[in-house]
């Protein structure tokens, strides 16, 4: 019995789910109409990742990490993966965002303890990469059923503004602009500035902002914006970036739900793979990925 899918959309999800359900899948016709037929490098490297860890720089580590988050609690031995590559880029959810939104979500499903951690050892921005992330995850025999139906009120907003290989002032400028918008809603805002230097700053310059809103019930809604990679497209002003990010966060808050739109699929997967007890969660409008 082989399930057949066409095209390369949802490539990761298909592979992850096939791994989890021990069912064979066949994916023909990948980019059949494209000039560049077949699998791209990052997909090949994703398949490699499922055996073993070098992330291609075409996509950020977030791309690989998302799949690992889905798999990690179900593997045999506690996972400890050091991923090298691009930590932040504009297409994929960055490592920072996953760290502040996905990890608390996993904790709600009973995957907790010392083991669960995403640690940014080195930052690497888009074109060249050079970042390093350590992801550790314990193994759980079963998931706890969750009742995520009350998002609750937002009590604080936290964030990280980072800058590598640019002036450290950039991060401060981002923070100021973001605060200018968010201060109208809530006073409890703290945005860390994270300026990495030297060996831990990767190979390319860049800056970005990750914001997360925490509610009284422990729901985390996140948003982030990255600077455009060097040599691709127009450069952005840090002020604009900060403002855009704040607006994205507001948008995310507007969409509501107990799980933010990046992690919807993760939450749903955990819910289905849990025990046979009823889990409930309230989601905002589903994102196309889920």
């Amino acid at each position, binding site marked *: 019995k082989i*399930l057949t*899918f*066409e*095209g*390369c*959309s*949802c*490539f990761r999800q298909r592979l992850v789910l096939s791994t989890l*359900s*021990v*069912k064979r899948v066949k994916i023909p*016709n*990948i*980019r*059949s*109409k*494209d000039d560049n037929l077949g699998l791209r490098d990052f*997909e090949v490297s994703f398949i490699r990742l499922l055996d073993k860890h070098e992330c291609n720089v075409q996509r950020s580590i977030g*791309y690989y990490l*998302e799949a690992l988050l889905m798999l990690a609690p179900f593997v045999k031995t506690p996972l400890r993966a050091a991923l090298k590559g691009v930590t932040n880029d504009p*297409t*994929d*959810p960055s490592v920072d965002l996953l760290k502040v939104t996905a990890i608390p979500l996993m904790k709600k499903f009973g995957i907790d303890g010392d083991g669960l951690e995403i640690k940014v050892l080195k930052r690497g921005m888009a074109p060249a990469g050079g970042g390093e992330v350590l992801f550790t995850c314990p193994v759980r025999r079963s998931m706890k*059923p969750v*009742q995520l139906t009350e*998002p609750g*009120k*937002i*009590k604080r907003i936290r964030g990280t503004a980072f800058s590598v290989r640019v002036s450290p002032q950039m991060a401060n400028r981002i923070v100021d602009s973001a605060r200018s*918008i968010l201060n*109208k*809603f*809530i*006073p409890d805002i703290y945005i860390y500035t994270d300026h990495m230097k030297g060996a831990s700053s990767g190979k390319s310059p860049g800056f970005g902002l990750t914001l997360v809103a925490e509610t009284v019930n422990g729901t985390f809604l996140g948003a982030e914006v990255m600077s455009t990679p060097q040599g691709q497209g127009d450069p952005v002003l840090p002020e604009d970036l900060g403002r855009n990010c704040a*607006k*994205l966060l*507001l*948008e995310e*808050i*507007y*969409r*509501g*739900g107990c799980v933010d*739109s*990046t992690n919807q*699929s993760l939450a749903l997967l955990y819910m289905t793979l849990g*025990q*046979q*007890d*009823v889990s*409930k*969660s*309230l*989601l*905002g*409008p*589903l*994102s*196309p*990925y889920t």
Partner: protein
Amino acid sequence: MEKKEQKRHQHKHSGPKAQKKNRKKEQGTEQVQDERKRNPRAFSVQSAVRMAKTFHRTQDIKTKKHHIPLVDRTPLEPPPVVVVVIGPPKVGKSTLIRCLIKNYTRQKLSDICGPVTIVSGKKRRLTLIECNNDINSMIDLAKVADLVLMLIDASFGFEMETFEFLNICQVHGFPRVMGVLTHLDTFKNNKTLSKTKKRLKHRFWTEVYQGAKLFYLSGMVYGEYQTQEVKNLGRFISVMKFRPLVWRTSHPYVVADRMEDLTDPEAIRLNPKCDRTVSLYGYLRGTFLKNKCQVHIPGVGDFSVADVSFLPDPCPLPEVIKKRALNVKERLLYAPLAGVGGLVYDKDAVYIDMPSGHKCLFQEEVRPTTELVQSLIGTQATLDAKMAASKVSLFTGTAALTPEEVKQNPMESREWDENAQRERRRAVFADEDEKDDDEEEESDEEEEEEEEDEEDEDEEGLTKKVDEKAVETAAPPVKKQKIEEPMEMPAFADSDDELEKSEGEESEEEEGDEENEEMEEGEPAKRRSGPDSGLCSEEDDEDEEEDSDMDEDGDGIVKSKMSFKHPEEEKIDTEDAEMAYETAGALRWKEDLAQKASEAYLRHQLAAPNLRKLVYGTVAEEEEDSNDEEELGGLFKVSRPERSKKVRADAMDCSRFHPDSSHDWDQEEVRSSIRDCFVTGKWEEDKDAATLLKENDELYGDFEDLETGEVHKAKTGNKDKHYHVIFQKNKRLEKKRRLKERFDAQYDDGDATYFDDLKDEMQKQAELNRQEFEDVDDEVRVQYEGFRPGMYVRVEIPALPCEFVTNFDPHYPIVLGGLGPSEGNVGYLQMRLKKHRWHSRILKTRDPLILSLGWRRFQTIPLYYIEDHNGRHRLLKYTPEHMHCGATIWGPITPQGTGFLAVQTVGGIKANFRIAATGVVLDLDKSVTIVKKLKLIGYPYKIFKNTCFIQVGSPAESGVSP
């Protein structure tokens, strides 16, 4: 003799004695309390070590009582308890079952054959199964038994079977075991009797647990056990509690109590050895069963279920629980294999229990009563009905389609189902139906017509066997149908939706194709439906004819089909519905904004595909009816994602979501729309800090109470006084609840342990599980959660080997064990194994062994090994005598921690103990290295200082066997 009045005792009221007594009386109570004070040395700590020891001991005893709390998953109406009666032959098993049945139901069942289900109490049913003396049945029944009645012939003592069965039980999760001693009347001497009883009891206790219940059935009266003793046994059975076993709570299983062969009789006639389609019936136990899952039937093999449906309970519990005992009507008995069960209706047939005990089978009449059909029935009625029945079971996805429904609009149901199938396929493959456009449809249409023409011709060619009259009558409707075919089109066209049309066509096309294939095959034997293609196509034609009639009547079908396509709020996942509420709720305060938002949301919803259908497959019919009148405009939007999906097939695989409907957050209005999402915003009534504060004041300050009351009075007019009263009442209740919570938190949680907390949590979860689908209709519920335990299900299994039917013996249990997602695969298993200490011989590597693991019994070739100190696995030629060793087998994947037992042969009864080994699955590693010491023989060919180089010949000549 006259009784002498005795002098009563005179209490002293004065004097030293009285004084002493008085003093004692006064101090008496104090003295008890002051024991510690009075004699402190007796209570002082003599030894800290001993103190610690005693403390430890009490704690140990306390914690020993705890079990890991499990979520209570027993359904509201649990399945009957499986009571297995086991024992060596001639020990009185059948007699005991008969007596129990008589005790519970006041009925006599002469022939116990297969499981017998009875209502034993207001809340409990029992399924009694007799286990014959055969290791296969013993293994299968040990896996499903909730309670084992172990019959022991006291005049003989324990027999090997008893111990074998206990060991089997131990491996597969221990069910409750109750011993029953019979043949006690053979003892003439009372002393030997009591001695034997005691001896057997203690032996039984060592085997089961200390204090296990052992019953004595002392003697027979008119060939039955004594009523009082049976009654006592019955009472014990009805109050027994069961602890869930891991394997069983994670796997669904059915103990089949009825079997019907659905295979086409003509196919059997042509090839008696052809594979059979069989439907098995029984109560579902364990956990939820999904439709189309894999099951294992021990002794037969793995099969994927074609269809599961639930039937009305043939042996229901009394509906209203009254205080009195059950009356005779409620004491039901159901044993179809033994030929008891009264009148039973189901999809395939109607069964009437005849007094002779034979089953009588009346085929139901499915066809409408037209002359044509009557004539057909006149010719080959049963076959006809059979065909119709088989068709129903082939196509329907749900059980609800009663024969009447089929009669009314068979096309609709089928249409719907094909729809559903297609729908599901769509959920899996991103883009399947891109290719249908109108031209193709039309060509299909034409093709179909051609096919039908062909069919007609074929029909005429093939219907020689059938009555001439029947053929004549059959011909006209076909023509009529052909005329009507084009008329069907406009009905679809009216809907003005390409998708609709294409689907309709597609389903028809499929049908056509099927028929076409059949025609091409040309061999009537291989046809699914009937001996005669003529008949078959007539059937179809009739169906279609009816369908077209329906279309003429009004576009009922079209409507209902369209309703499938409506992803409306109500149908969408509850989460989304809730979400809708939430957003609406949050935005209500700003009217126009909320309006806009909800509109936008609706648009979103329309654009999103029906989630529930995607996830859970078909949507039950009832819901559609309710949604029938929804606007048609939505259709257009639904089809759009379908088309865009195709484009998206090669889309970027990225979970980052860029919201498209960006609001302008610089505007004050937009900004204020989410203001309430923050702690600084406005809270809901009951959580607002201000109200909370006020409430607290109300609770604790009595003078405030008056004031607030006044305030309220001033606010409300007379008009809504009633409303106000209710409001206040609610508020008061709410207040009470909160107070109680606070009280509980203050006083109960003080000594609450982790265990209690865990227990509470589980309780809550169980409650939640129960509530979630409580008021949902069974039809819908089945799609959400699968068939729940306690339901009486009918499981249809295709392609069973014919021996299953031909050698069917109701005395042997048929168990359908559901398999987990990966348990159908075969791979390498590592297990820890120990030769059973009672088995006389040690086991040899590579000697075939029959394992019972999970639901299965299978033969495999184990490799025994032992782990050395350096972590290497060294192959063993024989198992150690009294030690565990490792074993690797090639076998079905089974979760770690599952126990297994091994026997060397299942046939025949040997004198000694048959269970060769027991153990547990440790790992499912694909790559395991087992090393073996080799002796290589070679010759030195060079000596260099202290080194000798040796030439080794080929492995064959040096004595290495692979």
